[in-house]
């Protein structure tokens, strides 16, 4: 019996070893990757605590973290707080609108049987394929005619329009996967259509909403192009555009610039960390019942 079993045991052991060494390799690759990803972030944060001279002398040295004068100057002497507030308002309102409209449209596309459904969905999908930057001139003219130019609203409506297609796509796909018996049950329990949406569907749709929120928030927060085209007034500028004012034609205060960048990068990083659980859940939704 032992003889008969021996080969299979050996085979099992060797496949086990192989699986383990593969996992080990994967871990090493992931660790290296996180170094590559974190390196610029670390340099940015370190440099934010150094003067320009220090940055060029010891670029990789650990800074003295008590030296916060860069931050103090960025917040006190520049319009950074205004830019920051503008970025929060623009990103926040855009995301709210994208989620609100995207979920409502997604629900309608997913649930109500109508011939126009496919057309509506295709219309939104067409928006995914169109690089909106190509349409910047007609967009500029449109916003000018609507007297929205040079205001935060010009950015909000543009970002909402850009974000909606993917949000509708994600939400429609997810809501379609929810059993329709849930809605029937709610309908019999006496819920109105908006109530079904609000009390039954939305609480279940949190993971895809987190995905839609994050994958829209990051590009909106970082966007430089549309503010550059639409905004002239300093008081309406967002962070990426505002940060460019730190770069002088002849000299640049690198310490201040890095401090500004650190402040600019913080909220979205924190948002990602806060929502990452939902994000991962949403990505794997349906994989395990």
């Amino acid at each position, binding site marked *: 019996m032992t003889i008969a079993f021996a080969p299979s045991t050996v085979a099992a052991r060797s496949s086990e070893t192989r699986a383990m060494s593969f996992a080990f390799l994967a871990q090493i690759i992931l660790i290296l990757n996180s170094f590559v990803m974190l390196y610029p972030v670390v340099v940015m944060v370190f440099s934010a605590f150094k003067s320009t001279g220090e940055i060029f002398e010891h670029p990789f040295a650990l800074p003295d973290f008590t030296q916060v004068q860069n931050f103090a100057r960025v917040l006190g002497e520049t319009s950074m707080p205004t830019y920051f507030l503008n970025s929060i308002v623009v990103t926040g309102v855009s995301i709210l609108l994208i989620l609100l409209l995207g979920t409502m449209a997604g629900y309608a596309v997913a649930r109500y049987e109508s011939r126009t459904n496919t057309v509506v969905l295709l219309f939104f999908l067409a928006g995914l394929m169109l690089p909106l930057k190509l349409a910047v001139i007609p967009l500029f003219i449109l916003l000018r005619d609507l007297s929205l130019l040079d205001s935060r609203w010009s950015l909000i409506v543009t970002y909402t329009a850009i974000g909606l297609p993917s949000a509708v796509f994600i939400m429609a796909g997810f809501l379609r996967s929810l059993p329709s018996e849930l809605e029937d*049950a709610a309908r019999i*329990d006496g*819920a109105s259509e908006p109530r079904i949406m609000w*009390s039954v569907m939305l609480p279940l749709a949190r993971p895809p909403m987190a995905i839609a929120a994050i994958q829209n928030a990051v590009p909106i927060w970082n966007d430089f192009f549309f503010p550059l085209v639409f905004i002239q007034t300093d008081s309406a500028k967002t962070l990426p555009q505002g940060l460019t004012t730190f770069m002088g034609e002849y000299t640049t205060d690198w310490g201040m610039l890095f401090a500004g960048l650190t402040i600019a990068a913080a909220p979205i990083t924190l948002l990602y960390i806060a929502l990452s659980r939902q994000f991962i859940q949403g990505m794997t939704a349906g994989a395990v019942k």
Partner: protein
Amino acid sequence: MANVSIRDIKKSFGPVSIIKGVDVDIEDGEFVILVGPSGCGKSTLLRMIAGLEDITSGEIRIGPRVVNDVPPKDRDIAMVFQSYALYPHMTVAENMAFSLKLKGVPQAEQKKRVSDAATSLGLTPLLDRYPRQLSGGQRQRVAMGRAIVRDPQVFLFDEPLSNLDAKLRVAMRAEIKELHQRLKTTTIYVTHDQIEAMTMADKIVVMHDGVVEQIGAPLELYDRPANRFVAGFIGSPSMNFIDGHLDAGGLALPSGTVLPLQVRPALSSDNKLTYGIRPEHLELAAPGTAGAIPATVSVVEPTGADTTLIAKTEGGSVTAVLRERFHLKPGEAVALKPAIHKAHLFDSAGIRVSSN
């Protein structure tokens, strides 16, 4: 509580006709089961009663009121779904209280009604759990609890037991029946399982291809099926059918065997008949016995209480359920003798010919 009356109900999806004119009367407090093979329109009919599906033509009344255009929430019904359809993000208690909350019932009364229902179903220790933390049977019970708290005029069940394992299904079957006996609320229950229908119903509605084949009490359907479809659908294992024609001595089979008949039916055009006999109404006889069907043993399935014998005859395969234990080998020649007064006759259109 209320009676439900369904008058000439039709339903079509586009050009496809799903329900082709159904009439059913359900008395106050009755337990009615709609049964039929999948695709027969039974679930659609239930959903029409619930108001989840439009009515193409006809009339549905709950109590004295025509409810054709009444939205589900105003029909005073409660429904238990096949997938239970519990709200995953609400606890058991919240699930059960949801309809009361929507109706604006005061908190204290909500709590009382939920706890009463929970007590009667043994759900009290589970009230704070989420549906995902419950077993299939417990979820089923919560779904029933959600229906009970509403105290509706009519309960609707849509194949509620089909997601449970066999043992639990038998237990829940008894529990639902007991619940009905206690609450005495009019209940309409859809299933494809004829055993569920036989064991639970006061009245069974057998549906097939969008029409009602027969309505009656369980044993009435078993004893006097109106046609070949009902005869084959009700009873397990299903009834044996053997084609033959009317002869001087009785019913002549193609093999030459003549089966005696209790009453000789009057036939109009052709003499073709189908002889129907339930497996439990066949008994084993020595080969060559007069009035017995000659057969060859093909499969023997002992179940303990009885033995199921599947045998080949010239008219096709025949199943017999034998009370006694026999030692039969496949290939052995036997004869199966039908109990004369238990035989059913159907004409070439499949309609019952009165014979007893």
